């Protein structure tokens, strides 16, 4: 019991829940997208600053459960400094990691982000982990894409 729950709520996740990284608004963001999970009321605002094809800064604010907060926090850490192509590739891998029914990528290959793989055993929680990534997807797409997304 304890062990299964600890696979979901690993220390790294708890650490990012308690002290979310890059948890701030960004006045000079080039793109801001709202993400919302109507099922549980979680919402976050993701700020992305792009310069010459590279993500030079990324941050978020919002309110959510441990899983969505940690997922957002880990996302911001992983993305900073990446090119848009690298970010898109990472997004693709995370979608696979969290949602692919068979042959998901090896969590170890994703570094810290691999800790989120624990949600695979909690189908009702996959949306929580996915929320920041779905929001990122909207933020990376072209500029006339919606500025608010919902996981439903």
């Amino acid at each position, binding site marked *: *019991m304890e062990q*299964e*729950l*600890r696979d*979901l*709520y690993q220390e790294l996740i*708890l650490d990012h*829940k308690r002290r979310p990284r890059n948890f701030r608004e960004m006045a000079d963001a080039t793109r801001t997208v709202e993400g919302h999970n109507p*099922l*549980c*009321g*979680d*919402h976050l605002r993701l700020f992305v600053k792009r310069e010459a094809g590279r993500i030079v800064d990324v941050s978020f604010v919002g*309110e*959510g*459960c*441990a*899983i969505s*907060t940690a997922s957002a926090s880990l996302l911001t850490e992983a993305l900073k400094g990446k090119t848009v192509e690298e970010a898109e590739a990472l997004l693709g891998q995370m979608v696979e990691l969290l949602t692919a029914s068979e042959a998901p990528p090896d969590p170890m290959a994703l570094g810290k982000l691999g800790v989120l793989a624990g949600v695979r055993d*909690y189908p*009702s*929680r996959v949306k*929580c982990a996915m929320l920041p990534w779905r929001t990122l997807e909207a933020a990376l797409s072209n500029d006339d894409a919606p500025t608010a997304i919902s996981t439903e």
Partner: protein
Amino acid sequence: MNAPQRVTTWDVEAVRADFPILAQTVHGKPLAYLDNAATTQKPNAVIDAIAHFYRHDNANIHRGVHALAERATIAYEAAREAARRFLNARSANEIVFVRGTTEAINLVATSFGARFQPGDEVIVSAMEHHANIVPWQLLQARTGIVLKVIPMDESGVLYSEELAALITPRTRLVAVTHVSNALGTINPVAELIAIAHQHGVPVLVDGAQAVPHMPVDVQALDADFYCFSGHKLFSPTGIGVLYGKAELLESMPPYQGGGDMIRTVSFEKSTFAPPPQRFEAGTPHIAGAIGLKAAIEYLERLDRLAALRYEQELLTYATERLQTVPGLKIVGSAPEKAAVVSFTIDGIHPHDLGTIVDRYGVAIRVGHHCAMPVMTFFGVPATARASFAFYNTFAEIDQLIDALQRARDLLV
């Protein structure tokens, strides 16, 4: 800590034996099903009645002369009579079978609301389920009615006396919940109805969370419409009841068109059957109605006042024990509550709580409980909610408290 000895004559173990689903383990722990406000479990009497119907009597109703069709029709109409008895309606013709509370309110908004004019008003309360908000907003979009709201205080009690001030000559209906699913508050519906009637305004009562806990008499309340869902009353999903006073139902146009609701049909014009058939287009959920009848008869065999007293003891015990959990805040502290407790714990999102206590066998609801305006009022995105039925035990409350402590150990 063990539950104190309670002075109660309620034989909970005997009642639990009637509900086969309760005797199971979840993640290796005994199931503590504390999500009864979402849906209740079904006693053997209900499960068996449905199985018996499909094994022996299944046929369509109101349209066959063969033996099975007659049996099915008699059983379906007997269910209507059981629902009449359950609510103490004057006539079984005042009982319309619907899919549930949501459909009942949509029916009233569509049919009773068909004659509303732009500027006419409907008054709801600050603690409504979305099912008693959105149908009125759809009507608002169709016809330009005005939606007004009876406010509530910080403990989750309605300012009932405000109702008189909200009513104007344009007010066509007051639609209020009997018991709040998010807060547990029992509203003084008799008083609200009396105020509305002084101004000649009819009242719809959403009884979804009331009928599982307390006897309801629509004549004593003088309710104009009263509705509930079978699945929250130990019956199947997909069946529910709309009670409407005969003179109101008779004045209302059909809700949906189809078979069973007509008197004559030609391509030029159709004439409609009287209520309740006018509002029951198409083949209904026959087995559901039969299951509902079995549930009502099951409840009639219980001592409902003893059940209510027992649930109130569960509520008191749960409230006391929850308050011992550090950082826990109860949302909704009305003096009159049904056995429903909403709460938050500092530093733990309700969604995480739900996942963790589930691993300890405890089923609770987490989220906005389809009452987003209530969440907004209390400034929380969501709450956790434990809701009890007469088959729950003090030990299950201990199990909940223990699981909440473990959630704190893990996350705080």
